[in-house]
């Protein structure tokens, strides 16, 4: 019990302490980017996601020490390590993208690499792959299709979280809410180890949030967004929480789906001529009325009228809360099948 509380609190505390140091390092190396949604476009340090990587690494090391002295189950620690390895691979891809700007195709293909630790876990029989549970229908038996879809299980959430991270605080707020609702869903389904991991990741993001919330002192960078998205995907597969994870990520999936369909394929945002939103001189943001502009979630929020950045973040948060509630209802509908 005490070791679980320690594992929940530790990532948040480390992230809270480490992030200011990462901000200093990024300032020293000149890793700064303009905040496009603020008047005067102030320069803000980038790649704050490295603080998440450092914090999770420290937490996983502590978890291994706890397992060595017998406070944690070995199956749990193996699952946690596989999730961590997925996080690390995705963070490395994000870091390369932050430093050298990868093409969207290469970015999506390289995120597929992050599913290798999960494949290994399935191969050694640490968990069963191909038996996802759906509400109402029950447990499916997808022996071949599941393995074919597995690369998308990491690539889709990683890129969806990355695509929605357009304003201050959206990633840590929405993803911490997603992990919290997944912890509730896991508890409903009787998966207490899954609930513990979800709370650890929620705590990690909440410790980081004070530095990324509006007005941001640091940007996440792809190193943060792709890694957290990949962690969501890995979590879903390792702990058999596929359906609740998809429902919690509805705003992210909606945004990614709209962007890809409206720009007709994967395109680097710098190569899209029309912006989905327009920032007025007074800092208020409005939807681009041009029908050729990409359709994004933020543009949809602004379709009825202009808003300031803080209100847009509030709107996205409310949408995420609704999705989280639907995910919890879905897990209640799944409970009977998991119990059976």
């Amino acid at each position, binding site marked *: 019990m005490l070791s679980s509380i320690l594992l929940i609190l530790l990532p948040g505390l480390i992230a809270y302490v480490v992030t200011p140091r990462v901000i200093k390092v990024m300032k020293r190396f000149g890793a700064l980017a303009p905040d496009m949604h603020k*008047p005067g476009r102030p320069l803000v340090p980038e790649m704050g996601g490295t603080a998440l990587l450092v914090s999770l690494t420290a937490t996983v090391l502590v978890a291994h020490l706890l397992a060595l002295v017998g406070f944690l189950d070995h199956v749990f620690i193996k699952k946690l390590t596989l999730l961590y390895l997925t996080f690390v691979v995705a963070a490395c891809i994000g870091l390369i993208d932050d430093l050298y700007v990868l093409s969207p195709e290469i970015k999506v293909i390289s995120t597929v690499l992050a599913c290798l630790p999960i494949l290994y876990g399935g191969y050694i029989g640490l968990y069963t792959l191909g038996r996802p549970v*759906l*509400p*109402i*229908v*029950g447990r499916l038996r997808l022996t071949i299709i599941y393995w074919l879809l597995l690369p998308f299980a990491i690539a889709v959430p990683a890129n969806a979280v990355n695509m929605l991270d357009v304003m201050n605080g959206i990633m840590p707020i929405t993803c911490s809410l997603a992990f919290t609702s997944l912890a509730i869903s896991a508890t409903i389904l009787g998966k207490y180890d899954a609930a513990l991991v979800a709370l650890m990741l929620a705590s990690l993001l909440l410790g980081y949030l004070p530095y990324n919330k509006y007005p941001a002192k640091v940007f996440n960078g792809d190193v943060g967004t792709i890694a957290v998205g990949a962690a969501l995907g890995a979590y879903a597969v390792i702990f058999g929480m596929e359906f609740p994870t998809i*429902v919690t990520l*509805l*705003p992210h999936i*909606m945004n990614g*789906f*709209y962007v890809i*369909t409206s720009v007709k394929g994967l395109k680097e945002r710098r190569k899209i001529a029309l912006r989905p939103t327009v920032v*007025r001189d*007074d*800092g*208020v943001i409005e*939807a681009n*009325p041009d*029908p050729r502009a990409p*359709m994004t*979630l933020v*543009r*949809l*929020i*602004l*379709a*009825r*009228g*202009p*808003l*300031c950045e803080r*209100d*847009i973040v*509030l*709107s996205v948060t*409310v*949408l995420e809360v*609704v*999705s989280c509630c*639907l995910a919890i209802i*879905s897990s209640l*509908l799944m409970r009977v099948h998991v119990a059976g």
Partner: protein
Amino acid sequence: MSSHYIEPINESSRSWLRNTVPLIAIIVCVWSLLMGILVLVNYLVDIAHGKFLKLLVHFIAFALAGLWLCLWYKLTCMYLSRCLRKKLIYSRTQT
């Protein structure tokens, strides 16, 4: 300049909920539709006996999933184009 800066933010603070409600409705519609499809597929799986009928149910399930995605996209496009059209008409009448 300062009053010009503060005024729109106050105005937007009142309207963020108005902007969000239709999207909440879209999310709830999309989820409800998915649950409806799952109920239908579950019913079809229960009544289908034999290999051919089971294969047919799988085909229907995939077709329904595709239809669900199309409906989702169409619903959003309709909302966006209606809002932007209204906005354009409003801005033209203002000018």
